[in-house]
């Protein structure tokens, strides 16, 4: 005996104690698929037969069943389930997860049950219990279908039970084996002429009957048309559209899901009482001229349409009003209703139309979802979904999307077929701003990157970043990238410095990098420049706008003006550039005043006076020689400290004095450049001309013979430079540091304090540990590149934002800020 059940369902076994449910379940299902009430009683009470633990046991059982069904796992409940209220709870669990409940009844005769129980010492509860189960079961049998079980299998004898086999059937909406390619066509609404034209444009050959009526269209190659529903109503020739589509579907040339208009038309044609409005009157009138036979066929066709299809191995979902991921391939009244009507609030607007929720904004699924129903001015992507209802019947156009090519094809309406009782623009659903969900960024996250595989962001890191991101960062729409942190080179063992280029060159040589580029480090503030043909942003390492209001706009205008050659060369509407913005005090003035200037002033005030006093004491013949020497040295260090930070500050007035040193072209429309040599980047960006821009001095060094590089660093830092950054010339990624900084001896006074160069201080500071910083640098770099690649591929904003947010989250990690 074959028991057919859907390949995703909740199987409820029904039978008296001793009817053989557990044996049956063991034979046909995996142990993990079977949830037995005995087992759960044991779980909560240490005693499988403790009936007083039943309530708690079923609570847990229902919870586990819900989780399994949510995950799309067939689940079998092994309990007597002879009482309707017990079954109702299970049906509720199934409905909540939008899967079908199925009942398999083991109607084993009472004497067999009693015999079996007698063989089990733990079941000493007597015959009356089994008899009670049996009579409850008998009373239930004929109501199981009504209770909501989609299939009911009854096994009436021991031999039925023994011979039963389970056969899985796919759901009606499961067309994963249909791999296309497809031409997905938006709402037709009775516009037959436009449909014929569109099909022809798509390469279909329209077939006609003796009367010249279109009855089929033969697709080019192995393609297939997929209609998103609402074939009918409002337009001039609903019967003609139905005739054509019915022919195509019947001949395997097309698929169609059901729209809300088909739903209502069927009800009207079957004689149910419906309000005839919104174009239904047109269909009914037109169909009245058709033969009874055609009307019957049309009714049957429309009534047979499924509410949504899952196609191409699960990569494509078509539903009339769209469908969130949790409903894909599921079956319930709720899923059906969503597919037909969308997510409505239950409210209506001033025109009496339902207020709709923009489900696509929240869509985060992998499958592409194509739908219609909601009027849009242009078909456009929102989070891997696209609405194809471009209003042909209202004088707009009929649109198709070629899948998997993602090409749009459309034909204009021949005329306005249906005048609306409200202005057209109010029908168009306003596109929301790019909406990001809290769940896109919070909690423990694993972000897949092309360079490093999965990068993990801990929940507390996300929490810190959330505050900074939401209170201070610019609009995520413009925040496409955040620069990674950069580790310093390994600590030098020389007795006079903390950092020296030798270690940087040695590190890359050991990693097999033959050539590196040394770039002068500009002591300013890191700036990312998103330059759009209109708009854009210049922002800091944590995503804050550099300059507020008009000043920011003006700076952006100047960059945009200079970037004309780049816009042309890359034929793009935007450029994303990594740069340093000088002077340092343009952004950090508060910090410099409160921190660096204060230290300099205090040291400069105290130490010379101390030296003076010590000299006076020495002149009196007091032995203060050592203390005097030390203090004089500290006084000199303090002067050097002041000189070090003052070098990087100069007065600015508005944008006067501001300079930008661009060093990497991160991305343009459709492309990233992180695999290009750094020379290419510097050369390309050198075309940004004008007093605003500062070139970055650089030198290519052979890691086998780095002497020239060392000399260059010495010259740079002796002249007061901050130092340099050493990067693999070819711009590698992965496990090799994307760059290390080698900072000058004097510059590091700002970071480590005026007296860091004294031998006893240096020897302690040398114990600094770089591991964490280096790990962060790699992960942040990988996240940054991943963000750029996602931008270039045109992925939804949330996918880009996830990476950008990840960089900020990692930056909240406590590492030694002096590194």
């Amino acid at each position, binding site marked *: 005996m074959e028991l057919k059940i859907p390949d995703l369902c909740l199987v409820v076994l029904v039978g008296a104690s001793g009817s053989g449910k557990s044996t049956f379940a063991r034979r046909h299902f995996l142990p993990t698929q079977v949830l037995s009430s005995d087992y759960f009683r044991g779980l909560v009470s240490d005693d499988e037969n403790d009936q007083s633990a039943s309530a708690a046991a079923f609570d847990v059982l229902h919870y586990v069943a819900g989780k399994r069904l949510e995950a799309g796992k067939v689940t079998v409940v092994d309990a007597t389930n002879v009482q309707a209220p017990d079954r109702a709870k299970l049906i509720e669990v199934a409905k909540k997860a939008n899967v079908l409940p199925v009942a398999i009844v083991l109607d084993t005769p009472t004497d067999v049950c009693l015999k079996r129980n007698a063989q089990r010492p733990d079941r000493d509860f007597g015959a009356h219990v089994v008899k009670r189960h049996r009579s409850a079961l008998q009373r239930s049998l004929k109501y199981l279908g009504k209770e909501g079980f989609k299939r009911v299998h009854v096994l009436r004898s021991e031999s039925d039970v023994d011979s039963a086999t389970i056969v899985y059937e796919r759901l009606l909406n499961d067309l994963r084996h249909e791999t296309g390619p497809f031409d997905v066509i938006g709402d037709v609404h009775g516009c037959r002429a436009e449909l014929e034209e569109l099909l022809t444009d798509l390469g279909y050959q329209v077939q006609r009957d003796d009367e010249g009526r279109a009855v089929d269209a033969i697709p080019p190659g192995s393609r297939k048309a997929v209609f998103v529903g609402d074939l009918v109503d409002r337009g001039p020739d609903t019967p003609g559209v139905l005739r054509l589509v019915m022919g195509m579907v019947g001949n395997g040339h097309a698929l169609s899901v059901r729209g809300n208009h088909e739903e209502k038309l069927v009800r009207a044609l079957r004689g149910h009482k419906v309000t005839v409005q919104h174009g239904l009157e047109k269909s009914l009138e037109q169909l009245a001229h058709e033969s009874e036979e055609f009307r019957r066929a049309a009714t049957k066709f429309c009534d047979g349409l499924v509410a949504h299809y899952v196609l191409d191995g699960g990569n494509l979902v078509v539903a009339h009003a769209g469908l969130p991921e949790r409903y894909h391939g599921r079956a319930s009244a709720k899923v059906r209703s969503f597919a037909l009507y969308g997510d409505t*609030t*239950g*409210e209506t607007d001033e025109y009496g139309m339902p207020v709709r*929720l923009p489900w696509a904004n*929240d869509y985060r699924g992998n499958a592409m979802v194509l739908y219609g129903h909601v009027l849009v001015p242009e078909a456009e992507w929102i989070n891997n979904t696209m609405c194809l209802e471009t209003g042909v019947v209202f004088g707009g156009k009929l649109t198709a999307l070629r899948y998997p090519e993602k090409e749009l094809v459309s034909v204009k309406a021949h005329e306005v077929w249906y005048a609306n009782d409200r202005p057209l623009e109010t029908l168009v659903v*306003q596109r929301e*701003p790019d*909406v*990001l*969900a*809290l769940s896109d960024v*919070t909690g423990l996250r694993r972000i897949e990157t092309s360079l490093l595989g999965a990068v993990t962001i801990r929940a*507390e890191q996300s*929490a*810190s*970043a*959330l*505050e*900074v*991101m*939401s*209170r*201070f960062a610019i*609009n995520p729409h413009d925040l496409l990238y955040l620069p990674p942190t950069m580790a310093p080179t390994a600590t030098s063992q020389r007795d006079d410095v903390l950092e020296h280029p030798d270690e940087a060159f040695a590190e890359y040589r050991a990693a097999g990098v033959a050539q590196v580029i040394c770039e002068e480090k500009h002591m300013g*503030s890191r700036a990312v420049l998103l330059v759009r043909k209109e708009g854009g942003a210049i922002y*800091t*390492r*944590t995503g*804050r706008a550099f300059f507020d209001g008009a000043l920011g706009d003006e700076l952006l205008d100047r960059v945009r003006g200079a970037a004309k050659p780049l816009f042309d060369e890359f034929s793009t509407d935007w450029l994303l550039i990594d740069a340093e913005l000088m002077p340092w005090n343009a*952004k950090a003035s*508060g910090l410099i005043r*409160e*921190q*660096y200037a*204060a*230290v300099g002033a*205090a*040291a400069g*005030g*105290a*130490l010379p*006076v101390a030296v003076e*006093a*010590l000299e*006076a004491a020495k002149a*009196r013949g*007091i032995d*203060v020689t050592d*203390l005097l020497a*030390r203090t004089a040295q500290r006084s000199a260090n303090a002067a050097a400290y002041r000189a070090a930070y003052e070098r990087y500050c100069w007065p600015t007035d508005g944008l006067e004095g501001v300079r930008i040193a661009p060093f990497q072209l991160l991305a343009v429309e459709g492309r990233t450049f992180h695999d290009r040599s750094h020379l290419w980047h510097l050369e390309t960006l050198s075309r940004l001309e004008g007093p605003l821009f500062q070139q970055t001095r650089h030198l290519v060094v052979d890691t086998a013979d780095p002497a020239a590089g060392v000399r260059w660093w010495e010259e740079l830092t002796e002249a007061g430079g901050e130092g340099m950054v050493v990067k693999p010339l070819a711009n590698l990624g992965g496990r090799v540091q994307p760059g290390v900084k080698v900072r000058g001896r004097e510059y590091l006074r700002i*970071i480590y*304090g005026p*007296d860091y160069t004294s031998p006893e*201080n240096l020897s302690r*500071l040398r114990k600094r540990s770089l591991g964490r910083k280096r790990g962060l640098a790699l992960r942040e770099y990988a996240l940054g590149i991943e963000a750029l690649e996602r931008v270039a591929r045109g992925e939804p904003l949330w996918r880009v934002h996830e990476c950008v947010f990840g960089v900020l989250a990692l*930056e*909240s990690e*406590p590492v030694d*800020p*002096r590194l």
Partner: protein
Amino acid sequence: MTTTHQPATDLGHLLHKHPDRAQSFTTSSGVAHVFYPKATNEECTVALLLEVDPIALVRGPGSTLTQYVNDRPYAAGSLLTVALGSVFRTAMNGRSESYPELANTPIPLVIRIPALPHRLADRLFTPLGWTVEITEHGERHGDVTLTGTVRLSDALKHLYVLLPVLDGGKHYWVAADEVDKLLKAGDGWLSQHPDKELITTRYLARKRPLITSALERLADVDEVEPEELDNALTEPKISLAAQRKEAVIKALKQAGAQRVLDLGCGGGALLRELVKDPGFTEIHGVDVSAKALQEAARKLHLDRLDDRRRERITLRQSALTYADTALAGYDAAVLMEVVEHVDPSRLPALEHSVFTVARPRTVLVTTPNVEYNPLFETLPEGQLRHSDHRFEWTRAEFQEWADGVAERRNYTVSYVPIGPEDADRGAPTQMAVFTSKGGKN
């Protein structure tokens, strides 16, 4: 410190430090050196030089740059005070076995402190009989000279108490015995000082914990002051706060709201009022600042609240610029003094989160009415009420925004003034009451 009391070298006796020797003492804040640049019968100068180990000064993960490199090793502050109290303890107590009379006599003294945070120096030292001269090194530090005729022990006590007070921060945790130290060192002069409250508060002020929050580390990355980022806890201290809460609760009651969202709850000022009323059966406070939520939990005494009240309260971190489905299904949402902390460019995202995703039946939004600002006497002209306010709206501007929201999101809106109303300028706070047009949540 110089005296012209004659014989001037008696200063060495009073201090118990010989004028012809240089001495060093190890103290908990560093090595203190005492020597005499001048020691004649007419004039004697003693110098105290504290060598601080800057690298040992700060330890621990999560320290910010500010804690690594700062003015501690150079400026006179609590570190110097510790050295002073240790090296000159006997003199400070006014005890001198050999010169008891001199120790008890005011003598002419000149004290030079070459790097001292000087802002309050004049104000605090002058009432104690000192003439104060300041040569500024910059905004914060100055070379300060005090001239006066004062008992040596009093002079040392003045320094002991006032150096850290001027500095405004102590380098160590303030323990209970600090009060005793203050009372002892302030004996005989502090109680008469016109600024005794200021001195007491600042002397006992807690320094920020050494282990800083992630937020401060991020501020470090961006090279801004942590205070610029961390202002979620500061509530504007205007008497309006109580009236605002009252008006909000009244509006919630009128709307029949039982399940209420406090969006941007901060330290929980409104939550504490809501909890008192059992009519609010579910109270869900969210804020973007984890620190603010901790503060709210602490002030609500969540850990020792009885189950019935505890179960009514949920505190969660969330951000109104992100869509948060956990906020859906409530009767009402309150945004009390929140929108003005959001950049105008981010308001559409907030609008979506609140009015479409959360979509409670009632939404209350309060915000300052900028027209009223000139009536605040202490508020400088043109300045906003809080440094983090991204804007403050006129009544017309607020209504333009709120009317637009209502139209776009299918709500009706009415306006309620909060606080004393001025005929021309309106009330200091304005509130919009949004009501969903549909009957359902």
